[in-house]
């Protein structure tokens, strides 16, 4: 199982991460070894097997969509790295 440096870079980009050149090599080798180990899954015939995402049999659990005021604006902003006038501050995205 080979993974190219370009693929590592693509994954980093998809993951919103910067990766140094040294780390790229380290990640390349560890991801190769994890995915090589995973090749063994191909030994199993899964032609007519349904995938299992959740083990519970229950599905589509609904509840009423009701607004509550359990948390105040002040509380919700309490952990914000930057805030002003009751809003989160983000870098400018529209020119």
């Amino acid at each position, binding site marked *: 199982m080979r*993974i190219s440096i370009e693929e590592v870079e693509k*994954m980093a980009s*998809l*993951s919103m991460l910067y990766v140094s050149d040294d780390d790229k090599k380290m990640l390349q080798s560890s991801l190769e070894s*994890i995915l090589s180990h995973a090749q063994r899954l191909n030994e199993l015939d*899964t032609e007519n097997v349904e995938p299992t995402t959740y083990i519970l049999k229950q599905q589509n659990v609904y509840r009423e969509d009701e607004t509550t005021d359990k948390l105040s604006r002040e509380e919700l902003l309490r*952990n914000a790295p930057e805030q002003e006038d009751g809003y989160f501050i983000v870098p*400018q*995205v529209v020119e």
Partner: protein
Amino acid sequence: MKLNELNLTQALTLLDKKEITSAELTEDCLKKIEMAEPKIHALVTIAGENAMEQAKAVDKKRAAGKKIGRLAGIPGIIKDGICTRDVRSTASSKMLYNYVPVYDAHVIEKLKAEDYVLVAKANMDEFAMGSSTENSHFGVTRNPWDMERVPGGSSGGSAAAVAADETIFALGSDTGGSVRQPAGFCGVVGVKPTYGTVSRYGLMAFASSLDQIGPLTKTVEDSAFLMNVISGRDERDSTSAIMRYPDYEKDMRKDIKGMKVGVPKEYMEQEMSNDVRRVFEDSVKLFKDMGATVETTSLPTFDYALSAYYIISSAEVSSNLARFDGIRYGYRTKEYADLKEMYKKTRSEGFGDEVKRRIMLGNYVLSSGYYDAYYLKALKVRTLIKNDFEEQFKKFDILLSPVTPTPAFKIGEKSTPMEMYVSDLFTVPVNIAGMSAISVPAGLSADGLPLGIQVITNAFWENTMFRAAYNFEQSAGFAAKPAL
């Protein structure tokens, strides 16, 4: 005897008889924390003053004859990936180094309703990714039995704190063995409940289809007691099971004559230390002596569980950890030119290496061209593994295995990710199949390190699990303690 050395059942009895107060009990835990923490570093945040206030408040209620909860005045330590209102909860990540939740996890609401006392938040592998508690932004936790060794992980702080008697009980979370493996390494009891039994509301998500919160305690009885408190339907978790929740202590003390026990040969064919094999064989003999019938059986898909686990859990990680963007909470990088650079720098500086590796692996197996080959394939293999376990429980009441292939390993010993992942070999299949399992101390290695056995039962068969574990615990009589 120092009061912090009591188990939960003993402490409750003495509190009820008014022979001790919660303030005395909590103070002894805090004293032990002060003494042991410089050596083992099991904790991220200590809630000392708050804990004493809570304890005194419960004492007043009890003295006044007011209605009190089932855990009134009992000190507990909570894994730092579980949200505790107004008490910092970091998941041992730089990303959340300053995060103070404005709400309690469902399990915390339950514990508070029973008047427990929050003593501290426990160290862990960052976002629960790891098997040794070496991947923590706040530094490694050491095993109370041997400071050169890891306590296991990811709930290593919780396990070490219980083993060191810093607390009466702890909560952890188990995605691939993160409660059972550290419980095994530290000589305490640890439970991975059936998926859906304990609400995940307020548990910082690692792999949502596998995560379950579970107790770490000094006895099996204490774990069953805590399951009665923390389990139950919660509509804020859409995977919370809709059912009648049992009394987990029911039938626990009945004997196990005639219980059908299976030992999957695939477990025993793995490389494992001689000590693990010896203690396990002694444990099997105990089950026979207690009147159980023990048979060798086979789980043909055992060898595939670990690979399926790392693909599925990493895929879920890459989605779950997308929320950490430096905007609403947690760490934000200092300097940036635009939004994208802010995201990227925040995440690159905020996450540790193992977390980054799993996010990238997850994005790889979910990306177009690889989705079918890896992610979908792993989900199909998961079906086969689940079917395999379900077949076993047509024949057996429980399956038995060692918890880990070796006793606690040395800090720094596992140099590659794959070496580390293999330490979860025996615990991972249970999460993939959604079964329930418990780790119970069974004996000591030649070096004096604790070793556990794992009792596995079918989904929602916790009563059988606790009964087998309780009977085993009583006859094994494991009483060793770390010399800390």
